């Protein structure tokens, strides 16, 4: 068959099989590795989060989560919540349009787990109640994270957390959105959330 009558897929496959330089036998599949520091402590997570521009929000004596959020963001006009621990002013499930989400000052979610090496927190459609874009439209993000749901490094994350195989959309957010595209100046708060705060809960 000529290139014209074959599908693009078949042409590409045929080209690859016909001309491939590296021989299969010479390059066996290396076993999976787990390298480096696997410390999964909250202290390591906190240090990494700070490096990525995120921050910890700790509860003061007798203070509830919602009170702590209101203390951290005294100016906020609304608080959108995806967690039962916080009542907020509206629930994420009740967002009907993205334009509504665009006006959210503070969003609170629970992460499935965190990565101590990078200060990253994992969110999927499960935690976001299918509001995938809305979390990124909010101005500020509060993340509830359990100290029991920490993995050491990225090797541990991919090997130990089943979410990578079950989630349709899974994002590891390590600090807030950022850019250094203008004259190398690091700016926290680019196009996604302007700040990301984690509460141990």
């Amino acid at each position: 068959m000529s290139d014209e009558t074959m599908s693009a897929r078949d042409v590409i496959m045929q080209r690859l099989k016909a001309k491939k330089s590296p021989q299969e036998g010479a390059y066996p599949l290396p076993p999976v590795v787990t390298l480096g520091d696997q410390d999964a402590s909250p202290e390591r997570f906190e240090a990494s989060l700070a490096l990525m521009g995120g921050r910890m929000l700790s509860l003061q004596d007798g203070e509830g989560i919602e009170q702590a959020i209101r203390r951290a963001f005294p100016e906020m006009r609304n608080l959108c919540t995806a967690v039962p621990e916080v009542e907020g002013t509206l629930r994420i499930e009740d967002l009907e349009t993205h334009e509504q989400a665009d006006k959210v000052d503070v969003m609170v979610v629970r992460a499935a787990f965190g990565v101590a090496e990078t200060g990253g927190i994992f969110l999927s459609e499960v935690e976001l109640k299918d509001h995938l874009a809305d979390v990124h439209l909010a101005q500020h993000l509060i993340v509830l994270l359990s100290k029991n749901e920490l993995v050491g490094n990225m090797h541990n994350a991919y090997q130990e957390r089943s979410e990578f195989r079950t989630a349709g959309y899974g994002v590891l957010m390590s600090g807030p959105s950022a850019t250094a595209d203008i004259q190398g100046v690091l700016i926290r708060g680019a196009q996604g959330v302007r700040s990301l705060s984690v509460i141990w809960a």
Partner: protein
Amino acid sequence: MSNRPVPHARLAAEFLKDEPHRHFHDERLWDMRQKRDEQMHIMPEWQELREQASRLKEHTLAHLPQYLEQFEENARCNGIHVHWARDGAEHNRIVEKILKDHGHSSIIKSKSMITDECEMREYLEPKGVSVTETDLGERIQQLDNELPSHVVVPAVQKLTTDVAKTFARYYNTDPNIDDPHALAEAQRNAARPVLLSGDTGMTGGNFLVAETGSFVVCTNEGNADLSANLPNLHIATLGIERLVPRMADLGVFIRLLSRSALGSPITQYTTHFRRPKKGGEMHVILVDNGRSERLGMDDFWTSLKCIRCGACMNTCPVYRRSGGQSYGSVYSGPIGAIIDPTFNARKFSTLPFASTMNGSCTNVCPVKIDIHEQLYKWRRVLAERHEIPFVKREIMKMAGRLLAQPTMYRLAISGTEVALKTMPRFVLYNYLNPWGKHRELPHPVKETFHSWYKKNRLNRTKTQREETQA
């Protein structure tokens, strides 16, 4: 597209004329290199990670048909539409068709080098499709109608004042803004309505995972997660070389990628797409565009291991002092110089010569591509194919003959010493000596090693060889 060789040296000279730009560019890229080094030094496993990354990529490339089939099958099971494109033109037609089928006409797009490689914007825009780049650096380049200067930081050759002028033209902001924060805010405010109204989201992707049929997008600004998730239609374009076999292999690559690129432990967003969102539709376009041909080249196939971190660009003294625009290609710097000639050997024939052969690119490469060796091999290939300029070729030939004959060489050297001492500059520095354009010729030495040795060696009797030659 013009087929004329990119005048790299002349374009670099243009870029170097402005001292503030020259200085900032050099310093900024070196700073990224140093931040990368800091990360490397705190990780004792760094070299082991590089080795593992290299072996995984080599294995995958050696078994590419099998992993592509595995990816396709798993992605289809997840509900993703998988398309194949032989070249850039076919890729662009696929995108056009998907849009047409949906009655769509506005694309919001995160940064992807491969759509630039396919010249997608140039194809779609005359057909009435708006394509808005949402990455800040890529947006600046789009507004200025320029190719990206760097794979990670596309507008790195520009200063705040340049961006302020560009934004003033398109965003109606003050042309005298000198605060990058204010400009980034202007981009955020300008991008939001476009993001909210776009009907099609497009992203590139850093990795395809064969085992799960998912793909991974590593970004910092949050624009990719917005572009992909806001509309109900998400199209992702990736090169066929982007595969890794297993989910667990990502640990190796994610740990290396941003550390090598910017010196940060990870990108702010590491996003895994495995199936379309609820009520949405997802398409993945797998692009060949010369990759299968490169995989058949014994000397150059390992360039397909590249994960586009840009570390080789940041470390390269030539790239830092010439700027990405001088390469005239989507891919610049050392990695560009070894992959661009596979797209067009004539047009990019000058690029493998834009190197001092110091090997720093090879040393920083997280997937251990022997970049400087491939630069050397390209020079040889291009010389054989007569793709290098006449003067350079003839001088190389003369030098070759000279260096092959010791007596001729010695005669020439002693002549050169006299010439360097006595000749006027216009004789020494002219078009026959491109090397001398930006460099001073070495000071003549009083005595060559050979003549010194002849005078000073203990045994002053002539060797047999010299006897016979005399």
